[in-house]
């Protein structure tokens, strides 16, 4: 079920808004509109739906309109056109009272530079949203403490923000947002101000929290690696428009256009692609039916130097090499078990390519992709190299 539905949402900054909207409808570019009307197009007819419990990443470079877009969602910036449906209500049109209620109860925001109140203690900061709702002191302090405990800051509740490190400050920002128990968390470049190691920790922690909380998170970032790491789905923005929405794999493997392709070019694909993406259908022989002769025949046909051996239930038993099979044939050995080798290099479907490198490097035979003892596919060296080079033969047949 979608929790937020954004339809044709636009924001034009400037005086000549009507003119600019007309030009937008005619499909003019951002630059043309700026030249003709002096208006800046912040967001250009963005449409998307966010499902309950998913991490939806809006990703783009600076100036792509992603920060404007997230502010249109809770109307920190007034939309020019379009609608934002939250729980059946169009936030772009509701009056101030309803808007306040939605902001208090449904949408909480985490900011890039933390935006903690320096005159309030950590606890008072975490209490802020509840205080605004008029919840009485005992109750709000209890809920704020629970939320601070979630992010591991119980010992610091009486400190002031300036006494905490950046990573800890952003935990407070997160706790402050969570204390309201919102339906949706809006995170505006929440980890961008942190240094890389802390950022990674925070990403991990967010994912960990998400396991238990199952919140809907809309996460803004300019960092593709971050987007790929935490996003269930990613919307890529350019010049105010959304150019592609998809799962991380879809975006990487099937970029919608040149822009996306260029964007994902530099990604360390080895961290994103898994065994499942690069494995291919294995040639096999059946332990119970086939002997060395069949094995040799099949290897000759396919041009292989080894072949995997399975039983009738596709359980992986081992492999035989061409040399062994040749010898066995010459000696007239019929039972394949006598030449079966069991030192099989195996990985699982979700093993990242990064981890496959090492295994495949030391292996004389293709790596087997095994799930619950059953053989699903094999990975040959060539496929690994092709995938790293970003060649299009990598397909998402299994996704």
């Amino acid at each position, binding site marked *: 079920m979608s929790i937020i539905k954004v339809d044709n949402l636009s924001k034009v900054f400037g005086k000549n808004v009507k003119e600019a909207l007309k030009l937008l409808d005619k499909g003019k570019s951002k630059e043309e509109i700026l030249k003709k009307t002096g208006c800046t197009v912040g967001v250009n007819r963005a449409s998307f739906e966010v499902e309950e419990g998913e991490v939806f990443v809006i990703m783009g470079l600076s100036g792509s309109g992603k920060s404007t877009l997230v502010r249109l969602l809770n109307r*920190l910036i007034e939309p020019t056109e379009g609608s934002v449906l939250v729980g059946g209500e169009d936030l772009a049109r509701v009056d101030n009272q309803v808007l*306040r209620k939605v902001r208090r109860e449904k949408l909480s925001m985490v900011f890039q530079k933390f935006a903690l*109140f320096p005159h309030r203690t950590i606890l008072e900061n975490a209490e802020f*949203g509840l205080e605004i709702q008029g919840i009485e002191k005992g109750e709000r302090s209890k809920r704020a403490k629970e939320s601070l405990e979630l992010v591991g800051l119980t010992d610091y509740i009486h400190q002031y923000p300036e006494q905490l490190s950046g990573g800890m400050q952003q935990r407070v920002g997160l706790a402050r947002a969570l204390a309201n128990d919102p339906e949706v968390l809006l995170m505006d470049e929440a980890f961008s101000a942190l240094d890389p190691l802390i950022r990674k920790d925070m990403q991990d922690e967010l994912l960990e929290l998400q396991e238990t909380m199952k919140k809907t998170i809309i996460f803004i970032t300019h960092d593709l690696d971050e987007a790929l790491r935490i996003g269930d789905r990613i919307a890529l923005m350019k010049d105010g428009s959304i150019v592609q929405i998809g799962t991380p794999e879809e975006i990487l493997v099937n970029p919608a256009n040149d822009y996306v392709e260029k964007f994902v070019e530099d990604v360390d694909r080895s961290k994103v692609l898994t065994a499942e993406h690069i494995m291919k259908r294995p040639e096999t022989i059946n332990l119970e039916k086939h002997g060395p002769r069949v094995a040799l025949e099949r290897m000759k046909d396919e041009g292989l130097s080894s072949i995997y051996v399975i039983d009738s239930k596709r359980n992986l038993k081992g492999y035989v090499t061409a040399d062994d099979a040749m010898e066995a044939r010459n000696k007239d050995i019929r039972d394949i078990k006598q030449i079966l080798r069991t030192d099989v290099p195996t990985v699982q479907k979700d093993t990242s390519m990064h981890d496959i490198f090492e295994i495949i490097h030391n292996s004389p035979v293709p790596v087997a992709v095994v799930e619950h003892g059953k053989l699903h596919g094999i990975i040959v060296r060539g496929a690994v190299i092709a995938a790293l080079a970003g060649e299009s033969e990598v397909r998402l047949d299994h996704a």
Partner: protein
Amino acid sequence: MLDFIDKLPVAEAVKEITKWITNTFSFLFDPIKNQFGDFMERFAEFLVGIPPTLVIAVIAIVTFFISKKRIGLPIFSIVGLWFIYNQGLWEELMYTFALVLISSILSVIIGVPVGILMAKSKTAEVIITPILDFMQTMPAFVYLIPAVAFFGIGIVPGIFASLIFATPPTVRFTNLGIRQVSTELVEAADAFGTTGSQKLFKVELPMAKRTIMAGINQTVMLSLSMVVIASMIGAPGLGREVLSALQRAQVGAGFVAGIGIVILAIIIDRFTQNLNKK
């Protein structure tokens, strides 16, 4: 060539307007003059009635705690106040202090809300800024004339003139302080669904506090300087001693009264500045 029309009757117009205001609002001015004047008189008398030793002791103790238990300001206060007492200017000091205190409080009561209004409304800012410039650059003596027209002579017109002269810094600094609150913090407040007044009292004013206090410090110092000038229209206190010394060319007496004002100024200034330190 520049004489294409006769002299414009600006002075006459202002005179007429002042006269009109005086007559029309006398129902307002008269009670202020009488009752507020009475109140000021009694307040000053009350201050004079407190034993000087007690006043000095209390000020020394309060300054000691407010300056984080450093002894510089308390010692200066004791010596300075004793010196004023020693020179026979204690009563004048109390009158001056009463005037400064009351006019500063009134300035803050008027100035902070006006500053908030300016911060919240672009229109208000555009309208009020030139008025503030006018209030501050017009020579202070000029205010004394309508002040006398409205309130006669004495304490009340002194406070009136002081209000006009000393309120602008509080207004400006309040405006500035609120506008300086970072956009992210304002966004954070909005994003959590604050109402206008929640945002003002829970975020903006606390954040702007130090800036506003700096403005109030300026206001207090300006009202002290105005209170001295206001002695020309009969406001009592140290200023009157300076004025009479000036009229009689008494260098020594003028210097002593002037030193008294300086001592009071330093104590008040350090006091309000320390209030602003956390």
